[in-house]
């Protein structure tokens, strides 16, 4: 990969003192440091680049570097809300919704961690309580029917149970509600995960063009709306 300085010469790039936006910023020096770290050169992206194609190439390289930096700092988080038992139940159901096949499943992209994050930082107290109570209701139901919690059921019994829950996924409470929420979040967390975006959907942030009559084989063209 060529360095951004090859794409836009330093002469074409105004320094910070000429930049309309950085000029009055008390945080200017911090912005500048971050930028230097990102593009690794003494040239900021000029406001009105002399050549538009050069700006495109520079922007691409900036974003590639940002991607690499962020990927390097992604670490798994410890669960804060889900108990080990709840986590086992949630993880098993999520993997049944999106199992590992020739592509990764829900477990390998850590759907449970995102769910736990939402329960800890996003959900209302009421929604969290209803969700956790719904998980309990699922086990309660399988104990009544099979004499075992969900995670200990034989696979055919688990499938039968999930089918029943799927039919009740719009319920206001109970196991159906918890399943519905878990299913929505499993689908969302799975398809927005880095692994799936990059390796399965092959999403590009830079389509470069719009084709309104493309063949269906061209897929994975961006983020969800």
């Amino acid at each position: 990969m060529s360095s951004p300085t090859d794409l836009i010469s330093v002469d074409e790039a105004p320094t910070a003192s000429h930049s309309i936006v950085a000029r009055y910023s008390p945080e200017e020096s911090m912005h500048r440091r971050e930028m230097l770290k990102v593009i690794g050169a003494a040239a900021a992206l000029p406001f009105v680049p002399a050549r538009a194609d050069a700006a495109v190439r520079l922007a691409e390289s900036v974003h590639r570097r940002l991607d690499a930096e962020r990927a390097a700092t992604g670490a798994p988080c410890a669960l804060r809300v889900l108990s080990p038992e709840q986590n086992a139940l949630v993880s098993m159901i999520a993997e049944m919704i999106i199992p590992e096949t020739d592509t990764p499943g829900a477990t390998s992209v850590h759907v449970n961690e995102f769910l736990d994050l939402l329960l800890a930082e996003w959900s209302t107290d009421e929604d969290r309580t209803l969700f956790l109570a719904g998980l309990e209701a699922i086990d309660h139901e399988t104990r009544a029917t099979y004499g075992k919690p969900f995670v200990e059921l034989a696979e055919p019994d688990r499938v039968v149970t999930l089918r029943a829950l799927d039919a009740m996924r719009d319920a206001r409470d109970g196991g159906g509600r918890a399943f519905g929420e878990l299913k929505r979040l499993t689908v969302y967390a799975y398809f927005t995960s880095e692994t799936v975006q990059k390796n399965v959907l092959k999403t590009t942030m830079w389509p470069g063009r719009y084709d309104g009559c493309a063949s269906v084989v061209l897929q994975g063209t961006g983020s969800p709306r």
Partner: protein
Amino acid sequence: MRQKRRYDAIVVGSGMTGGWAAKELTEHGLDTLVLEAGRPIDPNKDYVEHVPEYQVRFRGLGDRKALERDQPMQKDCYACDEWSGKFFVNDRENPYTTPDGKPFRWIRGRQVGGRSIMWGRQVYRWSDLDFEANGKEGVGVDWPIRYADIAPWYDHVERFIGISGQKENLPQLPDGQFLPPMAMNCVEQQARENILKSFGGERVMTIGRVAILTQNHNGRAACHYCGHCERGCVTLSYFSSVNATLPAAQKTGKLTLRPFSVVESVLYDTKTSRARGVRVIDANTNEALEFEGKLVFLCASAIESARLLLNSRSERFPNGLANDSDQVGRNLMDHVFFAGANAEMPGSLDKTTYGNRPNGIYVARFRNVKSKHPDFLRGYGFQGGADRSGWDRGQWTPGFGADFKRSLITEQGPWGFWMGGFGEMLPNPENRVTIDAEVKDKWGIPAAHIACSLGENEMAMTRDMQVTAAELLAAAGARDIHTYQSPILPGLCIHEMGTARMGRDPKTSVLNAHNQAHAVKNLFVTDGACMASSANQNPSITYMALTARAVNYAVEQLKRREL
């Protein structure tokens, strides 16, 4: 460091119109100070359009608790999301009040660039159907200008900012200086043909006219179709003041841009009967400062400019600067966009789209154009578009397991088509911005009190929107058509305007035909406040054209020593 305090011109606001005022004033050689209440923007750091879901904490679901605490009003705007939320104000620092039972969403951006950073980018010219309507129907006041007065300024603005669109030769929706249009997708193309046939050419669906470049233009790059303009654009492909007008102003060497400068009031000089300058609170230090200018341009947005005038009281203007007519703050309008329809479009399952087109289709106004509608005055257009659902449908459709997963990865849902109305709101003096002396913002400036509700004309229009949206979709070939009417929440269209209207008579209007205050000759208001009616077109292009026109007039007056 000693700051310069006297300038040729002062511009309050750095957004859609402030950027244009800055560019035109500085290009005419005037030493210009632009005051922006918010922070500076650094495209290198603040533009985040290519940050994917997995790089933001809540994967795009937003920080719900922070939004409810800090942005309970702003969060209702679709663009106030986990990426762009930083471009919207903190509602706790920027309060406003409304009467019981009359909610209003005042969506604001305080930063260099203002709301031009996250605007919807749709641009439609007005026609004489719009400029003549008030006068013909005896509603509000007659516009003091006609299409011929503004047409060259539309040209001027469009040539600089770059508008993509398709010429249609419609008298009610004049064509402009277009770059090549974005493409309609195959389902939209078919819908256009079917609708033209069904309605004898009276209802025309065209590709949205949009301030996004389809080819390199004035040093800015063509769109690369990443799809989220409201998050910024590192290639400067859509128009914002940060991307285009402010850099042009800066190039003249005549621009001084001062962020973190909250304008508290406009200062009035009784001896000269002119605005002397402005009083500013430094947002960081809370220090009060005064700046003087030969010209003062208010480009702070309709409600903010009205608030500023109402907060600028003097012996001569006890009810607010330039408010002899008592019209400052009145006639607040937004667009009516709470109704439409969606449907499934059968077929075309071998076709999909590639790239994220940041634009949709537009149906030009057809009501009260050739014939008169019995239930309401004026009209509306539709925005919308067709696309196919992707993996996201898995959140709501039945199923689980390997086949469910495979279908979400390898297949798409059917084509859907959405159409939502954007309707004209009539000026009503009771829809009004006043000052709530009890409530002050973070800088101690009295807040706006906003009383606004839709009238019978607007409600009749929303009913008709549902009917005609369904008709259009049926003509297009849709099935499973559902009409909708969402809760009425004025302000949410973010096209607020009208609070310091232009007119011929100083007794009934605030500004003359050149956006000049009748009573304060060196004071100009060129944001949405100046509008005497709302038409149904997205308004920014008209604000920009009026701003450029007003600056040109002001500079001429200065040269003739009449200012």
